[in-house]
């Protein structure tokens, strides 16, 4: 146990102090800071203090007021400003970018609202669509009035149909809950994917470095390969945890200081306040199991190469496996009840992501969850046993290791005959 800690703390500390780690962490943190400040950064570049000003000539003398009101209701940053000049002057002003757009409002032959809109670009902008929509609304209202529809009737027409969905399965999740769990599932999938790719690589590289610098033979004559391998896996896991916690703290504080509404949205979308503890428990459980599964494979693969450059090559199949799991999971977010998803949620290499997705989105029978976890744990144990043997043989094996044949060779080397 003592040696386990020695290897673990050595792995953790040397990585933590390494320039590569410090620099990548800083870059990620900078990225987060930039992301949180994205709206203000965009504003700085567009240079309009957030407000879009549109020059308006109202030939009808009644439309502007109504339109301004309904636009303001939706977005306060759009200013409709009465324009005093001629139409030509208005177009010129848009060309010189004094205004984002130039709108001419008038009533057509049927006394219904109509408009001409000038903007520099031909691409239909969000502004254009917004104004068109609002004007459409005013047109409907005016037309109704002209047809003699009174306001009460009109309001009734406008109102949404009464439509209520009731899930008969009592345990089924409501739409609201689903949206919220979807957020958590997204985060978990993404973090697990990143963890496997980034930290899996770190483990494999670490092992390959020790092997290529030939220090490995001393290491495994001091501590057993199994101790060494797992100390390394856990050491890197702690390193990852440090990084994630750091990112989380910075991110959380930024969100808090940034703006109140932002926080509200964020927490609602990802449903941090209402979801049952169950989901968190499963998220952590499946994350740990998923990490252990892939980290063991990574350590095993790392022990097979004798040059650090070959790590990428040998890790490829593993990365593909995670990618497949990730894409199935993303697909499954849309239709968690598909047969395909049910089946893959039992396959150990996919189950950490997909069973978690099902647990989050559906009401999965307990036996299914237990079976899936059981299979996963069994696979991890098997891989650990196999991995330890391969590791033991692999670290003594030098030469061009680039094929899966080396698995067999390494396995044979650690065997009695």
């Amino acid at each position, binding site marked *: 146990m003592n040696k386990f800690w020695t290897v673990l703390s050595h792995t953790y500390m040397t990585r933590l102090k390494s320039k590569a780690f410090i620099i990548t962490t800083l870059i990620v943190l900078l990225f987060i800071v930039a992301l949180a400040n994205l709206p203000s950064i965009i504003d700085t570049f567009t240079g309009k203090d957030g407000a879009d000003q549109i020059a308006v000539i109202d030939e009808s003398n009644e439309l502007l007021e109504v339109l301004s009101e309904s636009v303001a209701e939706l977005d306060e940053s759009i200013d409709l400003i009465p324009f005093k000049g001629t139409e030509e002057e208005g177009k010129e002003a848009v060309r010189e970018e004094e205004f984002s757009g130039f709108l001419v409002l008038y009533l057509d032959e049927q006394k219904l609202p109509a408009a001409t809109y000038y903007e520099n670009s031909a691409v239909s902008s969000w502004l254009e669509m917004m104004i068109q929509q609002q004007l459409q609304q005013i047109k409907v209202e005016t037309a109704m009035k002209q047809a003699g529809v009174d306001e009460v009737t009109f309001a009734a027409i406008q109102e949404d149909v009464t439509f209520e969905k009731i899930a008969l399965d009592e345990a089924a999740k409501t739409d609201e809950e689903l949206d919220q769990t979807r957020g958590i599932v997204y985060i978990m999938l993404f973090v697990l994917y990143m963890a496997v790719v980034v930290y899996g690589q770190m483990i494999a590289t670490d092992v390959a470095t020790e092997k290529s610098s*030939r*220090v490995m*033979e*001393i290491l495994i*004559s001091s*501590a057993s390969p199994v101790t060494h391998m797992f100390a390394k896996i856990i050491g890197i896991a702690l390193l990852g945890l440090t990084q994630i916690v750091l990112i989380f703290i910075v991110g959380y504080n930024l969100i808090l200081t940034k703006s109140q509404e932002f926080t509200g949205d964020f927490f609602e979308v990802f449903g941090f306040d209402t979801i049952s503890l169950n989901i968190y428990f499963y998220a952590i459980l499946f994350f740990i199991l998923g990490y252990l599964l892939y980290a063991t494979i990574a350590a095993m693969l790392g022990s097979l190469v004798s040059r650090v450059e070959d790590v990428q090559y040998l890790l490829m199949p593993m990365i593909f496996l995670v990618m497949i799991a990730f894409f199935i999971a993303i697909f499954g977010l849309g239709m968690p009840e598909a047969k395909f998803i049910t089946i893959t949620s039992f396959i150990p290499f996919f189950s950490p992501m997909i069973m978690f997705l099902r647990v989050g989105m559906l009401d999965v029978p307990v036996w299914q969850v237990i079976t899936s976890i059981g299979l996963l744990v069994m696979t991890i144990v098997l891989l650990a046993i196999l991995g330890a043997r391969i590791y*033991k043989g692999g670290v003594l094996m030098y030469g061009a290791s680039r094929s899966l044949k080396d698995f067999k060779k390494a396995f*044979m080397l650690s065997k*009695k005959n």
Partner: protein
Amino acid sequence: MSLSLSNVTKKFGEHTAVNQLNLEIPNQELFGFLGGNGAGKTTTFRMILGLIDQTEGNITWNGERINYDQSHLIGYLPEERGLYPKLRVKEQLLYLGKLRGMTKQEALVQLNKWLERFRVESYLNKRVEELSKGNQQKIQFISSVIHQPKLLILDEPFSGLDPINVEMMKDAVLDLTEEGTTIVFSSHQMDDVEQMCENVCILREGNAVVKGNLKDIKKTFGRKNLHINADFNLDFIEEMDGVLNYKKYNNGCKLQIANEQISQTILAQIQQKGFIRKFELEEPSLHDIFIEKVGEQYE
């Protein structure tokens, strides 16, 4: 109390790396392990350390199979030298010392002692990759003895060192033996082994072709070397019975004879012929034995 190998065989697939090896190495002994490249020395060491399992046979140390619980009693200098290139000497040795069960304080004391002994104190905070190969090897050697092991396995400890450093390291090895460490070491340098070891074993393709007490080996080897310097032509000796490996030099010759007695026959023959400046009968060197037994030239 000893390191004992009985009927140890290691097969890699069809290839037999070590074949039915029997060795008994008493504690506190400095044991020389010889053999050509690929003879099975490193494989034997790895089996002793438990890094790979033998196909057949038993290896015990003080009656027990070596396992990781004893790793603080065992030191190992692998043939493939390796240290963390990016780590500083101090961090490196502390880590490797701790892995052998030392506390940081103990490791620091030993570390300073050894760095001083090898005159490399100034490298304490240097990265290993900045050191010369010879100095790296000193650090590597320290890493294998820092925890004061009872059993030390040195796989070609002196290769790649200059003569001064070889002497420095030989002294260290001899001192460790004095202090009671059992040392098994392999080398291609026959002189080193001859100087230092009482007992040796020569491996050839996995078989122990020679083993035992060095003096006995030399005695039973039978052959002796004969140096003769004389003022007349000695070529006729080559044709005599029992003369092997005759080599002619400027003013004499060097030859091997099948047994001591033949020297007297030769002496009788040449006494009449003229002035003899040198007639010397000497024990065969380990080098001669090695070449005879392994059949190829090394060094």
